[in-house]
């Protein structure tokens, strides 16, 4: 039996689980879309932000909404670790001939796929309703967006897995994820440009991995390289390196269960 086959089976199993749990699927996609519609239009009409690189605040929010979708999705996907542990399924998986790391890999890859699909869905649903420039062309723009979303989801899946293997309860896990990810989301350029922030907040923003995902998505959809942007090369370098490191960290500590599930 091959580890790849077991990994693929776990991947498909978790993917099917999310597809069956439709409420999770819909809320992960539609919550960011509601954000776009209400917050985007409200701020565009009410405040007419002139310093935004996109044509409207709604267009500007698309990149942030895609990143937010990935953040929500990674949290939900990693919660399946606790569901499997508490329902006894994890013990069954760990009683198979495969090392625990293979089990984790299959499950976390499913989380990456789910997050990527949901984030891409937000982008594709929003695209017809906002004015994107697609300065690299639509195909290349979508490819850049997809790559940045994949790297972001690998990074988030690794982070979620690293936390899940150290935090005993699902409630604790959600608390820590929210505490860690919401500040990162706020200071990533998802909701407002970071170059207008005070210097100390700009330092925080540039130390924030989500900033590079937002930047890559903005560059993919509506902005040419310029002073206001970090640049695709740096974005992918930072995201790729961090994704690889954090994902490896997430898989480094495998779950240990006794026969009786302790």
């Amino acid at each position, binding site marked *: 039996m091959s580890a790849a086959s077991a990994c693929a089976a776990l991947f498909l199993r978790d993917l099917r689980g999310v597809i069956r*749990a439709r409420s999770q699927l819909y809320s992960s996609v539609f919550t960011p879309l509601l954000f776009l519609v209400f917050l985007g239009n409200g701020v565009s009409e009410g405040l007419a932000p002139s310093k935004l690189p996109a044509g409207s605040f709604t267009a500007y929010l698309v990149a942030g909404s895609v990143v937010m979708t990935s953040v929500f999705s990674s949290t939900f996907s990693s919660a399946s670790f606790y569901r499997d542990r508490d*329902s006894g399924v994890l013990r069954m998986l760990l009683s*198979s001939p495969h090392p625990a790391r293979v089990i984790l890999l299959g499950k976390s890859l499913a989380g990456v796929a789910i997050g990527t699909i949901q984030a891409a869905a937000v982008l594709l649903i929003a695209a017809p309703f906002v004015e994107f420039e697609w300065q690299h062309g639509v195909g290349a723009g979508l490819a850049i967006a997809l790559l940045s979303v994949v790297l972001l989801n690998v990074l988030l899946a690794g982070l979620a897995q690293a936390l899940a293997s150290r935090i005993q309860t699902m409630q604790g896990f959600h608390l820590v994820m929210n505490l860690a990810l919401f500040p990162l989301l706020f200071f990533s350029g998802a909701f407002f440009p970071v170059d207008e922030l005070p210097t100390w907040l700009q330092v925080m923003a540039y130390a924030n991995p989500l900033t590079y995902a937002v930047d890559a998505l903005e560059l993919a959809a509506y902005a040419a390289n310029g002073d206001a942007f970090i640049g695709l090369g740096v974005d992918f370098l930072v995201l790729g390196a961090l994704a690889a490191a954090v994902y490896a960290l997430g898989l480094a500590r495998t779950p240990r269960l*006794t026969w009786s599930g302790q």
Partner: protein
Amino acid sequence: MEGAAISAAGIGRRYGERRALDDFSLEVPGGSVFGLLGPNGSGKSTFVGLVAAMEAPDSGTLRVFGEPPAPALRARVGTVFQENASDPLMTVNDTLWLASRLFGVPRAQARERSASLLAAFGLSDRASDAVSTLSGGMRRRLEMARALLHDPSLLLLDEPTTGVDPHERRALWAALMDTRGAGRTILLATNDLAEADAVCDRVAFVQAGKVMATGTPADLKRGLRREAVRVTVDGLTPGQLSEVEQAAGAGQVVAQDEVLHITVDDASAFVPRLFAIAPGAIRTVTIEQSTLEDSYFQHVARQPAGSVAPL
């Protein structure tokens, strides 16, 4: 019977200060149905976990099919845990599909074995249903089918019929024996002595992490007094209990709540003595043949009357 499927010598296992297994030694013959019997917390499940390579012993030597337990060896082992381990959101078919992929069963063979196991365990018409819609007994049958899908040489059953009604229990064991296959060894950890008496070729009594006695159920019952008297009492004084223990013909006397269990040579001669000792305290008297339970109490539960570890 073949050579030993499982061989344990001087196994020790601790969890912090608690000693779960202490100089635990056992041989499980290949092809046998072997029962590990003991009260909750006696170390049965800990030993099964070591055999499944989910934990490692702190000391001693353990061999499964002649090899130290390792994850790769689990390809030859099927496991049924005390609690259900199937995803309630998955269908019955998907549960078996996942097991087949994890254990590397070729697709065509997996389809064939799934169909035959579902038929054997009476689940064919529920194959497309979610596990959450199955009754408790059906879920246990699914656990069995899942554990057998890769045709393991060793099946580890940890209290597989807990919470299952007698009808379901009989059906489950009948299906398990039908699908047993040549040479498969079954290690059953249970505290159901009647179940072990009915299905096991050999048993071991386990208490406080040690094997207290081992043999066939017949061997273990041999030498017991022939009959057992079960007496329901109300207001039996300690003095009267002591008199019962000293009465002529009394063997092992176990008191649990309001029930006295006494092994005797001749129940018809012993019962009148009981009424003479405690005429007002006896509510009911039942005379039985000696069972594995009597042997268990003789070997394992040698605590003072009234403080017997619950089975």
